[in-house]
């Protein structure tokens, strides 16, 4: 092992820190492994924490070290990620100390699942990860990009890797937002082998970015013998990206959605972002159009005022009316409102069911015209009604086989 430096630090300590720890490692010439543990949970977990530290040192072949660990109730996956982050600073080890994958995290995702809500979590904050899944977002995004300080990128990769294996996502789609390329390609090494479902590619402006990410994922899949594909969700955050939206949306069959990032986009446009968002109306409708043309989902930006639930509600309603099928969130309390708004209302479902009934009846009778009451229904309206009914069935809002379904295929 080649020495780079003797002392390394990682993590964070302090009176307000919860579920995290601070690690200071000093390589020594002799004296064996000396652990100075200061932990809030020492009386309950002191010996298991020390055991974990010893295991990590043994794994990396470190025999003489002085460790200071200030622990604010960090779970083992966090402690080992922080330790590994320090070890990587003082050695050029190629090894990774990877915790077990819990059984609950071994589920796959599917291409056309709902993505109404995706909860963003800062990739270097273990506290927020622990309960994210119990709030039932459709997706959880562990973010390696904007929410992680440039000097903490490596720490965050290790923490996100461990979280993908150890934190129960409770069925949410498992997403990671990587950094802008080329750093983002390095990120992939730490996430692809750990059942990540969707990779979010920030500031996407051209097809070549998609191809680069895909190539790296393919390499990693081969290396780790992973057969399951990884979905991609490019984020459009620049004027150029908006102009290229359709090309990007149709660049790969692994792309399931495009998301729009209004904070960066308004900066790029040189306009002020407002709650009404008229300044980005063109960009958003263009993005929706591109997604529909490519047959993928269009996902709207986050609503950043977490205290304004009414504002959020209005925002989601507009979003849905423009054709978006989901939205990012930055606070768990936003999830239920987003779901409420994207889910079709009872009235919408009833109306759609009536139209479908009329359609089936007309088909059965061999009529060329569909009518509800005295009103003629055009075929595109039927198509939209069918989408609503299918959505309601998938969401469990109405039974799978409505008794009205008397449709028999015509020969």
């Amino acid at each position, binding site marked *: 092992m080649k020495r780079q430096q003797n002392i390394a630090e990682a993590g964070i300590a302090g009176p307000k820190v*919860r*579920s995290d720890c601070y690690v200071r490692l000093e390589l020594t010439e002799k004296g064996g492994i000396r652990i100075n543990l200061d932990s*809030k*949970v020492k*009386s*309950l*977990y*002191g*010996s*298991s924490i020390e055991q974990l530290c010893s295991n990590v040192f043994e794994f990396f072949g470190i025999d003489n070290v002085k460790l200071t660990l200030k622990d*604010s*109730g*960090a*779970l*083992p996956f966090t402690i080992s990620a922080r330790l590994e982050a320090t070890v990587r600073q003082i050695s050029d080890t190629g090894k990774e100390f990877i915790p077990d994958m819990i059984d609950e995290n071994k589920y796959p995702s599917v291409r056309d699942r709902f993505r109404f809500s995706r909860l963003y979590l800062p990739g270097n904050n273990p506290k927020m990860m*622990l*309960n994210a899944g*119990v*709030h039932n977002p459709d997706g959880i995004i562990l973010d390696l990009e904007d929410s992680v300080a440039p000097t903490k990128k490596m720490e965050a990769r290790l923490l996100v890797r461990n979280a993908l294996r150890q934190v*129960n996502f409770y069925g949410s789609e498992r997403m990671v937002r990587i950094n802008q390329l080329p750093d983002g390609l390095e990120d992939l090494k730490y996430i692809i082998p750990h059942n990540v479902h969707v990779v979010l590619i920030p500031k996407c402006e051209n097809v070549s970015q998609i191809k680069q990410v895909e190539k790296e994922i393919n390499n990693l899949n081969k290396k780790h013998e992973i057969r399951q594909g990884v979905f991609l969700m490019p984020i459009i955050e620049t004027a150029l990206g908006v102009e290229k939206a359709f090309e990007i949306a149709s660049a790969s069959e692994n792309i399931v959605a495009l998301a729009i990032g209004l904070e960066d986009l308004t900066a790029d446009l040189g306009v002020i972002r407002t709650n009404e968002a008229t300044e980005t109306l063109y960009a958003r409708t263009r993005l929706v159009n591109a997604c529909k043309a490519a047959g993928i989902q269009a996902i709207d930006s986050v609503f950043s005022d977490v205290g304004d639930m009414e504002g959020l509600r209005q925002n989601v309603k507009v979003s849905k009316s423009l054709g978006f099928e989901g939205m990012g969130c930055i*606070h*768990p*309390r936003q999830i239920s409102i987003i779901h409420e708004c994207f889910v079709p209302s009872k009235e919408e479902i009833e109306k759609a069911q009536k139209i479908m009934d009329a359609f089936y009846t007309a088909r059965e009778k061999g009529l060329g015209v569909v009518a509800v009451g005295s009103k003629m229904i055009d075929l595109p309206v039927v198509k939209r009604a069918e989408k609503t009914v299918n959505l309601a069935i998938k969401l469990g809002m109405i039974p799978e086989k409505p008794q009205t379904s008397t449709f028999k295929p015509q020969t």
Partner: protein
Amino acid sequence: MPETKLAKNAVGRSVPLEINGKPVIPYKGVGKHNVAGAKHGPKINTCKDFPSDGNKRVGTLKEALKKAGLKDGMTVSTHHHFRNGDLLANQLFDIAKEMGVKDLRWFPSASFPCHEHLIQYLEDGTIHHIEGSMNGALGRFASQGKMKGVGVLRSHGGRYQAVQDGEVKIDIAVIGAACADSFGNSNGLYGDSATGLLGFALADSQYADKVIVVTDNMVPFPCVPWQIQGNYVDYTVEVDKLGDPEKIISGTTRITKSPDRLLLAEMTAKFCDETGIIHNGFSFQSGAGGTSLAVGEYFKKIMQKKGIKARFARGGSNKYLVSMLEEGLIDYILDGQTFDLEGVRSMAENPGHVWTSPFTSYNYHGKGNFAGMVDVAILGATEVDVNFNANVVTHSDGYLLHGIGGWQNCLFSKTVILPIPLFRDRIPVVVDEVTTLCGPGELIDVIVTERGIAVNPLRTDLLEKLKGSDLPIKSINELKDEAEKICGKPEKAHFDDQIIAVVKWVDGTVLDVVKKVR
């Protein structure tokens, strides 16, 4: 310290047969302890010993304490109406120190972080020990085995019972009142230190040997309403300032913004809705904690949606409860502790906002009390075990950090729900066995955690109503396993043999002990 004789009580805990030199009875089970005999009788007084014009004013608190005969070994009581803004208890013991008095037993209705000032008097022998909640620094001090005597923790109702039954004979009660007349009639409603009510001082006024009322707002006779009656009072004192108004407002009386706690509150409200607990004319106990307040807000939404109202809400009042009263969603607030100025205003203005006391609401040795009439009580806990026993006074590391408050008394409500996180910073909250047993599991019905809801198997009626519910109903053992899966199996906290405090049950028997932390 002399050898203490121990006996196993009805919940299997080893408890002493003697505390601070006096015999005590081990806990026998809910409703198993019979009592006989008469209540404590304070001595008879005569008007001829008191000023005929009713003016009982003396110049200073020190003078009043001297006249009351403060001396070594006495029991002195104070009350926590001023919460963390209390200045009186600290002043009282500053005077005791000046007078060179030793070995006092402090009998507060609760202590707060502001009373850290008193640690010096515990160290120098002015105060022998505390019988009342020991929070924060005082709890830490006691947990380290530094207090000379053994602390005694009682519920608010248990405190009334102990005084009434003569278990604790108060020599001098010092009652701080926001408003008083020179005769001693007093209330907490008006003045700079307004706190709403003075219910925690009721027992002291009725049973203490000497009663001193201290106020920073002396009004001409009559001070009405007289929450404390002057006929019980020996001396009245006027001071510049009794409390720090900003700190009188309890820090916990704001609805939580934590998404995890809001989720607990939402699940709790949904549970109450699905099981029919929320119905027209129902009643609920609302605590001051952020989660408990949030439950109230969710109740409000459900009640508005259904067009129903509650007959009464019991517990600490605050602006949220007051708004429900004023919007006609509750007929009455039966207020035991007023947590903010909106509560104080409402109590002064609204006949539907009624002040109560531990006697009316909680005293177990009476002809009934209000707690049992409440449909649902939403309470907290530091730990719950697989037998539904709960702890509210210590943390899993063994440190004494909270008082019992009205918690034990509220366990007699028809349904008791504890919304608690499954773990806090790696510390499992649902455990094999609670560190300190403060409430027997047979009285605790529902544990709501963010990862599932456990219903006490004794409550078959609730389980029946939940059939077909999409709420995440699990067994308490499943919850415990889940906590351990996430946090790891905890080691047992290490304790010394020294008992630093005991936990009394509502009937005065000893439920558990708190030991010195190693």
